[in-house]
């Protein structure tokens, strides 16, 4: 989808100056019985001296045109001659006053200053000045040194049932509720680790980066949901107190998801979290969760056995994991991972681009917290989170510009956007458990708490509850029980 990237910071529409000649606005004295036509000044004999002086100046500067500044009719202008009061300070009608304002347009712009000076010397002139060129009040421009604050668009942080209640628990539990003391490892292919809103020096603990902007934006968006730093600009991560590390799934030049999980497992400890942000094509030609593959399943089991909570995207294949074709595969066995489906958020509308994938532009997506049409589903899917238009770092559709380090998006979607919401939630829970009890919870306990306290899944047209994606995390409820 081609989307125009926004400029950095606030955007100026680029106002061009109005067209038209520069001119002088001259106000005649009220007591001057002078009238004017487009080419000359005129009046009764007794003001001949004044009209001659005015016309001499017009002639000297080869003035192009003389006109009423307020667009008065010739009759109204001529009335000045008879209606002029004996002195300038006497009250006059509005019509009379307006008739005394004259636009004088010289042929040459360079003559404006001298012509104004000459006019101001004349007895019949109250005041002459170059008309200002009006422009709209200047809007803040792209030179803004700080990024916009996107926190108001991060609805997933808000209280249940709409969000996961992250903001509530940060306030309740202070530092321990932000994932402090917990390390999160994101497994995919690339990240912009120089992004302004991410913690400095996020280490790559293994694998080689995939040199592609799509992969880089994706990883950046995932990290932003979890660990972007709080502050007056950008976004704020659910588990902003957690430490982040990243592991590429490419090892020895080929995809090796199991090897990536195993390497992360070797470098993490009890209470830490691994996020698997990948999917692959299954036997029906649809995307499925990575634990379908036996080596990945075993690698997850090893991590979970070590006390590491593994969060895994269910995938965007609209696939039913409970089909017979998946009997005896990882899609019908418990790896110990928290498998995450994508739900419809309460924001619940397509935007302008809705029609580009066959839906109504600005139409409703469906019932909030029902399965979004592309999410995989089944008994192993543990919980859901926002799978549509999550605001985070990267991509540049919300704030773009030359530097990728200042890019933000309002449109990160899929089980990709849902999984980091759950991962961040897990880090907050484990941070609290460590602070409160001196040790983290076993991974399966974290999962059962998320399921038992979560805001229930809803049914929607064409997406019954039997298409199971589980509830949405409710952090305040979990925190009450930890």
């Amino acid at each position, binding site marked *: 989808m081609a989307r125009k990237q926004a400029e950095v910071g606030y955007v100026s529409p680029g106002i061009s100056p109005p067209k038209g000649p520069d001119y002088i606005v001259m106000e005649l004295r009220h007591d001057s019985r002078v009238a004017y036509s487009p080419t000359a000044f005129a009046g009764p004999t007794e003001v001949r001296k004044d009209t001659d002086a005015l016309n001499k100046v017009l002639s000297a500067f080869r003035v192009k045109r003389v006109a009423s500044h307020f667009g008065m009719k010739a009759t109204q202008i001529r009335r000045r001659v008879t209606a002029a009061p004996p002195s300038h300070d006497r009250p006059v009608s509005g019509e009379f006053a307006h008739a005394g304002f004259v636009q004088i347009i010289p042929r040459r712009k360079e003559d404006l200053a001298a012509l104004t000076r000459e006019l101001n010397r004349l007895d019949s002139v109250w005041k002459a000045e170059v008309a200002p060129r009006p422009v709209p009040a200047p809007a803040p421009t792209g030179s803004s040194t700080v990024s916009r604050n996107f926190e108001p668009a991060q609805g997933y942080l808000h209280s249940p049932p709409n969000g996961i209640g992250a903001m509530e628990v940060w306030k309740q539990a202070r530092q321990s509720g932000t994932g402090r003391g917990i390390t999160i490892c994101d497994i995919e292919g690339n990240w912009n680790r120089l992004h302004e809103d991410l913690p400095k020096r996020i280490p790559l603990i293994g694998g080689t980066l995939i040199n592609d902007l799509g992969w880089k934006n994706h990883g950046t968006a995932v990290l932003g949901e979890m660990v972007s730093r709080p502050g007056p600009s950008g976004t704020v991560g659910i588990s902003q107190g957690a430490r982040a590390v990243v592991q590429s799934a490419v090892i*020895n030049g080929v995809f090796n998801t199991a*090897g990536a999980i195993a390497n992360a497992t070797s470098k993490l400890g009890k209470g830490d979290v691994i996020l698997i942000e990948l999917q692959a094509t299954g036997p029906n030609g649809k995307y499925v969760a990575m634990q379908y593959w036996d080596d990945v399943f075993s690698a997850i089991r090893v991590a979970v056995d070590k006390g590491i909570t593994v969060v895994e995207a269910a995938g965007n294949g609209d696939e039913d994991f409970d089909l017979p074709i998946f009997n005896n595969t990882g899609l019908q066995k418990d790896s110990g991972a928290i498998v995450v489906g994508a739900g419809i958020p309460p924001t619940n509308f397509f935007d302008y681009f809705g029609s580009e994938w066959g839906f109504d532009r600005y139409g409703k997506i469906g019932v909030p917290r029902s399965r979004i049409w592309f999410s995989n589903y089944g008994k192993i899917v543990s919980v859901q989170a926002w799978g549509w238009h999550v605001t985070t770092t990267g991509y540049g559709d919300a704030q773009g510009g030359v530097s990728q380090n200042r890019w933000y998006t309002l449109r990160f979607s899929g089980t990709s956007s849902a999984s980091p919401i759950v991962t961040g939630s897990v880090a907050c829970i484990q941070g609290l458990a460590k602070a409160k009890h001196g040790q983290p919870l076993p991974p399966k306990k974290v999962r059962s708490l998320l399921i038992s306290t979560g805001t229930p899944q809803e049914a929607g047209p064409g997406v019954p509850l039997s298409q199971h994606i589980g509830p949405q995390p409710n952090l305040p409820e979990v925190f009450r029980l930890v």
Partner: protein
Amino acid sequence: MLPVTGRKPVPLPKGMPPYVVVRLKRGWRYSESRRVCVSSEGQETSLCEGLPRGSRIVPVVPHAARADPKSLSKHEQNLARYMHVILRKGSVPSQYLGALRERPCVEDAQLPPEISLPE
């Protein structure tokens, strides 16, 4: 176009070589130093035989493949059985599945999953 964001799917990394995922039979291990598979009874067999010149065998989880199986958990032992057979560029991996499956040490050989991002 992806159904979710309307974005184009992210491409696979450029220059990724073709490869096959092999699972060894229980009791077999791959010896990196000798580049052969060794059974618990001491039988040896080459995994590379019949593969294009320059093919490489890489354990999926090297530290599990090198460890004493007795020190590993059930799932770690399972991981130790997985190998990537990385073929020379331009090779067609599906052509080698049959030959690999016939090796005495191989339980299964599969094409790798087509991985993408769930965006």
